[in-house]
């Protein structure tokens, strides 16, 4: 244990590592906040950059970028309605309405503190229960991923805007858009119309920027004459009583984040969406209705996505299996530095585990510090005259989309989505389900087909598997209950039961 502590404190006591972690976290916040710059991309650039270094400083830098980056996405989501990273999509749903009410400062303060809390829960889970959680994560069969994706998709029901039909349309549209490109399982093109450019699919970050950022910017053009809302920045740090009130929600959301983050097929984006859905279902009296600036609507996703960071490290450190795209890059970095990521990593290089835990903790602390400084200046972004802000949002959307994979075609998609999203908004649709469908659609499609193939393409054997495996049974029951909870049948039944009681 004392040895573990020494390794844990390594990056706290070595000034060079301390500085690198700080620099990484600081940079990460901005990488996360700028749409199109992703932590995955930054981490792979850092691998070339830190090539000739020792492994520890390289890992310290990457851990900082990762922690900061996942948090940073909430900045632009709150201030501009452009989620800086997919993990911040759910944050935009209530964060941006908060900014429109003049509470950008409060929203940033609250997300920072809850991100810190979530990050901390993730790190504790990593430190205490890593082996158990990673064995649990291995139990998830393709059909269980299908059930998880279905659970996430139920969020469409609560994000549908005027009517369920509109939500369903938007969700299905998102699924269809997510299918575009080469089918990873058969190598056939789907909706590609014979072009190579479409083979790569439509990156959902382009859709995210278009549907959220550009369509909102276009909609804002209607209120050019309206003076921007004055931001109240007198109090940034949320009060203790407010924090205590959201502690249980934050803890629940963090637990979701850890598990979803640890699953090799899912990451912070899905964790945040599921946590948001969970909050919407369980919080009886939110500070405001969800979607109109509920504090709960930023607490839940932000706790979850930072908890997913620690979660993603769990299978990576214990089994050499990446929990998400960023940890996949980190595995590559370990390889290049001559380490052998895998189940033996913790046995052969035990210091690495505690070093990483210490490092993440340090990055989390820096995230809190950097996150809470300069909020007043950031909140003023919303006060910029719209005549200047809107062109800035547009140019940022263009260059951000281009940066995803250096493709002008993606930029066209982004603009197309922006204009289409503008009409959807005008006619009472919500754009959230489209992006939700794009993220979850491919996961559902591949998991369903994998499950069906492994059942020998036999629908009956396929259906039986949902009730014969204990894990699948639990998930199936959960999906069924959630689904019933949304339908009138259940409400009627519940009403009758309570009357009898």
């Amino acid at each position, binding site marked *: 244990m004392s040895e573990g502590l020494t390794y844990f404190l390594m990056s706290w006591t070595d000034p060079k590592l301390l500085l690198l972690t700080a620099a990484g976290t600081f940079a990460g916040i901005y990488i996360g906040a*700028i749409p199109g*710059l992703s932590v995955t*991309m*930054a981490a792979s*650039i850092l691998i070339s950059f830190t090539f000739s270094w020792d492994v520890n400083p390289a890992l310290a830098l990457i851990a900082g970028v990762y922690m900061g980056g996942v948090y940073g996405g909430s900045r632009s989501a709150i201030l501009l309605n452009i989620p800086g990273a997919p993990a911040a999509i759910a944050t935009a749903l209530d964060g941006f309405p908060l900014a429109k009410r003049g509470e950008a400062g409060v929203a940033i303060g609250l997300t920072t503190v809850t991100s810190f809390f979530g990050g901390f829960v993730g790190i504790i889970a990593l430190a205490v229960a890593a082996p158990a959680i990673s064995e649990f994560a291995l139990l998830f069969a393709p059909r269980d991923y299908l059930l998880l994706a279905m659970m996430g998709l139920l969020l469409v029901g609560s994000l549908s805007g005027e*009517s369920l*039909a*509109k939500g*369903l*349309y938007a*969700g*299905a*549209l998102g*699924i*269809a858009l997510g*299918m575009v490109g080469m*089918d990873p*399982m*058969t190598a*056939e093109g*789907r*909706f590609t119309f014979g072009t190579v450019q479409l083979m790569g699919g439509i990156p959902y970050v382009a859709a995210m920027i278009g549907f959220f950022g*550009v369509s909102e*910017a*276009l909609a804002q*053009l*209607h209120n*050019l004459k309206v003076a921007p809302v004055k931001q109240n920045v007198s109090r940034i740090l949320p009060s203790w009583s407010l924090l205590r009130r959201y502690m249980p929600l934050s803890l629940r959301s963090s637990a979701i984040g850890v598990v979803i983050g640890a699953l090799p097929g899912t990451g912070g984006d899905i964790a945040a969406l599921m946590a948001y859905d969970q909050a919407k279902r369980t919080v009886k009296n939110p500070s405001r209705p969800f979607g109109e600036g509920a504090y709960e609507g930023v607490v839940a996703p932000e706790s979850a996505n930072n908890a997913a960071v620690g979660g993603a490290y769990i299978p990576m450190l214990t089994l050499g299996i990446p929990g998400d795209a960023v940890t996949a890059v980190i595995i590559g970095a370990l390889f290049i530095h001559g380490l052998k990521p895998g189940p033996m990593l913790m046995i052969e290089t035990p210091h690495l585990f505690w070093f990483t835990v210490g490092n993440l903790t340090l990055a989390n602390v820096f995230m809190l510090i950097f996150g809470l400084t300069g909020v007043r200046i950031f909140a003023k972004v919303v006060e910029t*005259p*719209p*005549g*200047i802000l*809107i*062109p*800035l949002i*547009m*140019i*940022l959307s*263009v*260059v951000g989309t*281009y*940066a995803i994979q*250096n493709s*002008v075609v993606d*930029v066209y998609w982004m*603009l197309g989505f*922006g*204009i289409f999203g*503008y009409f959807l908004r*005008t*006619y*009472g649709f919500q754009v959230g389900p489209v992006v939700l*469908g794009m993220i979850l*659609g491919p996961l*559902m499609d591949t998991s*369903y*087909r994998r499950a*069906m193939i492994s059942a020998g*393409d036999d629908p009956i054997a*396929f259906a039986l598997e949902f009730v014969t495996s204990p894990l699948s049974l639990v998930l199936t029951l959960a999906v069924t209950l959630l689904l019933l909870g949304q339908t009138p049948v259940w409400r009627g039944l519940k009403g009758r039961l309570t009357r009898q009681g």
Partner: protein
Amino acid sequence: MEETTRRRQPGETVFGYLLLLFGLFVATEGYRIDGLYSPSAAGMFPALAGGVMALSALAIIRRTHRMKPAHIPEGSGTAREFLRRTTPTDVAVMALLMLGYMLALEPFGFPVASFVFLFLAIFYLHRGSLLATLLISAGTLAAVYLVFRVLFTVVLPTGWLFR
């Protein structure tokens, strides 16, 4: 939750039918991927998504019909009202500006195209002084270029017209 009092927006009916057409298109294209030859076919989800789109578009159209029609003032038609309210000049101008910007991106290169776009857009929307617009555009562009090109080595289009 349900906002039944909203009036129909100009163009909403047409939009509903367009959504339906798009849904049917997705469904048939999805079916055509591989003719759904097995329960794990690649076309399963695309066809299903298209089906859901088409069905919900029908429900949307039905609701739109039940709404009170859009308020159309004397001497104006639906088409004109659509242009006035749904796509006012500002929206149309900005959308076209952006389209032009994207088309210019590759031939003229990122710096030139972005600068012209920023300058025109800010000048049109903000209507500030010429000098201020010039400074804001140049400053923003420099910052964006620094972050993306220099720090993150994103290779931005350099333009082939001026090579």
